[in-house]
């Protein structure tokens, strides 16, 4: 029975984590100078992992003493692989790390603090830098940033009699309704009803209303009037049948955007490439707009940082490599390869990045975007918010009640 096997494997991993070889510490002493011959091990996730190998080849040419060994890791297994590596003391020299991981791994004590003499906070988007910071110490250098903006079908909007991008919640809902009624789309807006990471769809509403999960002083404020207002608005899309109540793990919004079933969604910069490559027939029929505003137009900030392992013997060379990747030239090159938005603001002043109108939408959104707090149990905290959202979208509870429950649950998680 495969199921039994899986349970055993899980138990095995757990046990390996519990009593595994804790080889960390002790090896940090003998560091290799940056100009010595050496091999850097680098882990990068998803599409970045594939593209980084090309950059590594370019880098090796300029730095013949360094061999960069890039291991692509799938996002779905990234977290477990990193935790296992941390437990076994086999972290790579350099690793890409999402903002949501940072709290956990700094807590595990496997990350080297950023050398702030080499990397200057002022060069990066504030939300990008804050993602790598835990309790005032920076552990990650922002590599690329992302934020969600509104993607919408201009051709279908025209058909529904609307020619301008929605700028307020009211206009957005009016457009969603018009799409469905007058342009014959199946849905009005694609947002997730429940399941893991639904909260990411909710952030543009929550932040724009002026709410957040945890305020700057570390107090839990998910039951604030602003948050309630945001969740009510979010839930109304499901009430009115403008958004799909059905949970579809692995759902690909790009396809439905292409066939017109879904005329609006909140997407990241990578969706530009996905649409250009996957739905070429759509060229000129869609546009991006800043998140429709309530109190403000504020979106969530995501992205990835680069970290150096505390145990690495190649910290000097690793710092050099990261310096290249997050420097102006490296960032512009990276944008060309991946369309990942540069975290270094200096990279935005030249070439495509300065001229492209779509990119300016992202730039503007990025200036105000808010990053999630870096807490070690962030996954668990956002899970409680996910549950509150699910209750509302499925019509099981009012926004007030759902968030009150979430508030008390999260309070007991944040000590």
């Amino acid at each position, binding site marked *: *029975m495969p*199921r*039994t096997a*899986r*349970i*055993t494997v*899980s*138990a*095995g991993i*757990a*046990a*390996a*984590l*519990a*009593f*595994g070889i*804790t080889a*960390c510490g002790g090896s940090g002493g003998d560091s290799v100078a940056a100009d010595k011959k050496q091999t850097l091990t680098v882990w990068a996730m998803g599409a970045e992992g594939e593209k980084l190998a090309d950059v590594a080849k370019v880098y090796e040419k300029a730095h013949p003493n360094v061999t960069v060994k890039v291991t692509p890791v799938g996002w779905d297994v990234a*977290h*477990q692989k990193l*935790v296992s590596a*941390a*437990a076994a003391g086999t972290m790579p020299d350099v690793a890409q790390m999402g903002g949501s991981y940072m709290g*956990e791994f700094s*807590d*595990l*004590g*496997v990350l080297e603090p950023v050398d702030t003499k080499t990397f200057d906070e002022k060069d990066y988007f504030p939300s990008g830098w804050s993602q790598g910071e835990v309790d005032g110490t920076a552990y990650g250098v922002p590599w690329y940033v992302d934020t969600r903006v509104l993607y919408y079908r201009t051709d279908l909007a025209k058909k529904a009699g609307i020619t301008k991008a929605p700028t307020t919640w009211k206009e957005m809902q009016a457009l969603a309704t018009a799409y469905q009624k007058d342009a014959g789309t*199946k849905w009005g807006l694609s947002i997730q*009803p*429940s*399941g*893991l990471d639904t909260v990411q769809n909710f952030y543009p509403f929550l932040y724009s209303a002026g709410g957040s999960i945890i305020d700057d002083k570390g107090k839990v404020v998910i039951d604030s009037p602003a948050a309630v207002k945001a969740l009510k608005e979010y839930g109304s899309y499901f009430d009115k049948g403008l958004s*799909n*109540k*059905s*949970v*579809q*793990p*692995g759902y690909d919004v790009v396809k439905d955007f292409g066939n017109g*079933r879904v005329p609006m969604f909140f997407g990241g910069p990578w969706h530009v490439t996905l649409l250009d490559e996957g739905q070429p027939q759509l060229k000129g029929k869609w546009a991006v707009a800043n998140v429709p505003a309530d109190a403000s137009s504020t979106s969530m900030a995501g992205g990835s940082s680069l970290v150096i392992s505390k145990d690495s013997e190649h910290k000097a060379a690793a710092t050099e490599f990261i310096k290249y990747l997050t420097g102006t030239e490296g960032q512009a090159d990276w944008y060309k390869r991946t369309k990942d938005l540069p975290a270094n603001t200096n990279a935005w002043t030249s070439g495509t990045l300065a001229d492209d109108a779509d990119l300016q939408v992202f730039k503007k959104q990025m200036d105000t975007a808010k990053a999630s707090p870096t807490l*070690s*149990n962030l*996954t*668990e905290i956002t*899970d409680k918010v996910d*549950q509150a959202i*699910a*209750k509302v979208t*499925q019509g*099981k509870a009012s926004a007030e009640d759902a968030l009150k429950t979430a508030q008390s649950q999260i309070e007991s998680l944040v000590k």
Partner: protein
Amino acid sequence: MSTVTGKAAQTAKGPQGRATAKSPAAGPGASQGRQVRRKPLGRQNAAGWLFSTPFLVLFLVFMAFPILATLVMSFTDFGLRNVTHPLDAKFIGFENYVNLFGDDKFLRSLLNTGYFVVVGVPLTIGIGLLVAVLLNNGIDRARTFFRVGFYAPVVTTIVAVAVVWRFVLDPSDGLISGLFSEVGLTGPDFLGSEALAMPSMIAMAVWRNVGTVMVLFIAGLQAIPTEVREAARLDGTGVWAEFKGITVPLLRPTMLYATVITTIGYLNVFEEPFVMTQGGPSDSTLTVSLNMYREGFNFFHMGYASAMAYVLFVVIMAITVLQLRLLKDNTK
């Protein structure tokens, strides 16, 4: 039952040693056990040990050790921090176990799993038996075709299966909602509704597991001697009477085995909700295994997840013993 006898024999003579063996209380089983034990470790035994060493090493490292480690962990507050400092985990006695029974989410997952088993097992066994009987008796020509057809889901990977089922169940352009819209109706939202998500999951699991059960039953059916059937037919027994009087009683051992393994498999159900719904909507398809996985690997409550694993183990054990009792006694 051989293990039980062996164990009984061992305990009977264990601590008291030779004195008990001589006493009249020790039955024939006990003296037999002693004989085996006293046999010197000869060359044959040494070879036996040598050949089983690879298995034993693997068993100890990948089964016995994790099982034990999980037990130990279930009595600690093992969390994310302990990943790099495992010895800092605090021993907290039965706290995890006590907390489990005040945890609504866990109780919900237990209930969901129970639902899955109670509905899923009879359906799987029933349909499996039906298909096996049909394939064994009727349609001679297409038999192989149908056997493969029913067995294919068993050997297909779950991800491929999930993709297909997602298409079938998709509320907007799925196969089923397509049929509904043919007649001008809106199809139900199978995976997005709390009432339908679990039944859909069960349907998929039944479809997937009927093949396994079917193969077992076909093997069982073919083991029934043809003479018995022929004799019955000569006596003028009808099809239904033959099924009730011959097939079912002679299939009992197979039935027992199929029921037990299906129940154990369903109590562990994980892949279906993991791939299809992630436990949603609103935890309506959250099973114990999925809950355990999320507690352990998403939130890193390793101690808590381990306790959950042991509760599930005890539940499985209890149900299996119960099934063996109930179904076995009936054969006599």
